[in-house]
């Protein structure tokens, strides 16, 4: 058990503190230490411990009187009291008056229950305060016990052992090649009449007659339709070429109509 928590610190100012200062338990000191209380519950706990009985047997009425007396005295001394303390004072005054009422006139929840609640809370705070003191009093690392001052340190150098097999390399290369090979457009073999052969063919056929001939008549008869198509195109270009050279003339009566040609003398 600590001595009722008269070691006070300003928790807001600094949570790491120098050595704790002890102070006397005289009343005067008590009032001067107002700033050091950790709130009204803290003050109540300290007052309760002054009753020097087990917290389970404290007199709540006596505690209320002590608290209210403390607040009055502080006000006489014109000490600034935080609102929390005044709120607690008002509540305790209410609790006291309720406790003094005949049982049948007592409000709900009963003041006994409220008093019990207060008592339970004081017990819990006291328990944690003691626990904290015992914890802090343990053999602590860096103060009472020490780790090795200069450990060599364990170092694990991680190395990657890379794995890959021969097939994966070959396959990867195949994939690269496949992905980046230039795109080749392969044209299927087909029967064609080249321009040269069309030119020869049309020129020689033109020499046979002086009459107009339809272009279609220059095409190889009975040919595969695909060859006829190619021959038609080549022969048309051949006709244009012969006209350009002045060896043939062309005529067409209407748009898309039959194209005719004849030799120029």
């Amino acid at each position: 058990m600590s001595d009722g928590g008269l070691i006070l610190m300003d928790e807001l100012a600094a949570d790491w503190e120098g050595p704790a200062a002890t102070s006397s338990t005289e009343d005067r000191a008590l009032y001067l230490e107002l700033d050091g209380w950790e709130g009204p519950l803290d003050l109540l706990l300290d007052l309760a411990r002054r009753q020097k009985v087990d917290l389970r047997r404290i007199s709540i009425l006596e505690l209320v009187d002590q608290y209210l007396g403390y607040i009055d005295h502080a006000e006489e001394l014109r000490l600034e009291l935080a609102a929390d303390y005044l709120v607690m004072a008002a509540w305790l005054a209410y609790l006291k008056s309720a406790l003094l009422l005949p049982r049948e006139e007592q409000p709900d929840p009963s003041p006994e229950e409220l008093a019990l609640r207060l008592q339970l809370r004081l017990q819990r705070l006291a328990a944690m305060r003691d626990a904290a003191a015992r914890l802090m009093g343990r053999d602590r690392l860096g103060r009472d016990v020490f780790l090795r001052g200069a450990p060599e340190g364990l170092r694990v150098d991680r190395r990657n052992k890379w794995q890959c097999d021969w097939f994966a390399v070959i396959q990867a290369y195949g994939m690269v090649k496949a992905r980046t090979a230039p795109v080749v457009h392969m044209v299927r073999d087909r029967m064609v009449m080249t321009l040269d052969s069309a030119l020869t063919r049309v020129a020689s056929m033109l020499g046979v007659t002086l009459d107009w001939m339809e272009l279609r008549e220059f095409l190889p008869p009975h040919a595969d339709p695909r060859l006829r198509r190619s021959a038609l195109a080549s022969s048309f270009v051949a006709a244009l070429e012969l006209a350009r050279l002045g060896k043939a003339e062309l005529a067409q009566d209407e748009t898309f109509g039959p194209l005719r040609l004849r030799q120029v003398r």
Partner: protein
Amino acid sequence: MESLDDLVRAVEATLFAAEAPMSAEAISAHLAGADVHDALAQLVQHYAGRGVELVERGQRWHFQTAANLAHLLRREREDVRRLSRAATETLAIVAYHEPVSRAEIEAIRGVQTAKGTLDVLLEAGWVRVAGRREVPGRPVIFATTPNFLVHFGLESRRDLPGIDDLRAAGLLDPVDDVLAALLPSGGEAGENPQPPLASADESA
């Protein structure tokens, strides 16, 4: 000098050289997967009563100087910073109740927790954020760390001073639970004239 098992020597050397406490698994991993439990037990026994001891804290092992030499070795200066009362109480509440929310800490202490108080404990590496409570508002909850056990020389939280007595006395149970058990109609305990700062709601 008994002739020493190679494994015991290896575990001893490893823990001596380690810069931080090691779990049995980590030691084992460092030693090509050997089972080190027997070796650890042998070392604990060998070092018992010597100036240096092998201890287990939160399932991790390290050597440290014997506690009963503290009077010779104690250093009050730099290493151990003194905690404010608010911080020590908060630490105790976290340790004995974990996981706890800030509101639950405040319900016990009867006072608001200054922002810096928990920060100090987090920074010291004794307290960590342990997730959120799945209640409205999803408050952050706090718990202690393995480092806390190391610093305060606790093998586990079960070694917290007096924790069994506190639990048996119901002093780790929320006030509302105790009241509900004591009072027949305790359910809605104290809706109206609550003690100020009672924060009964938060401990629910």
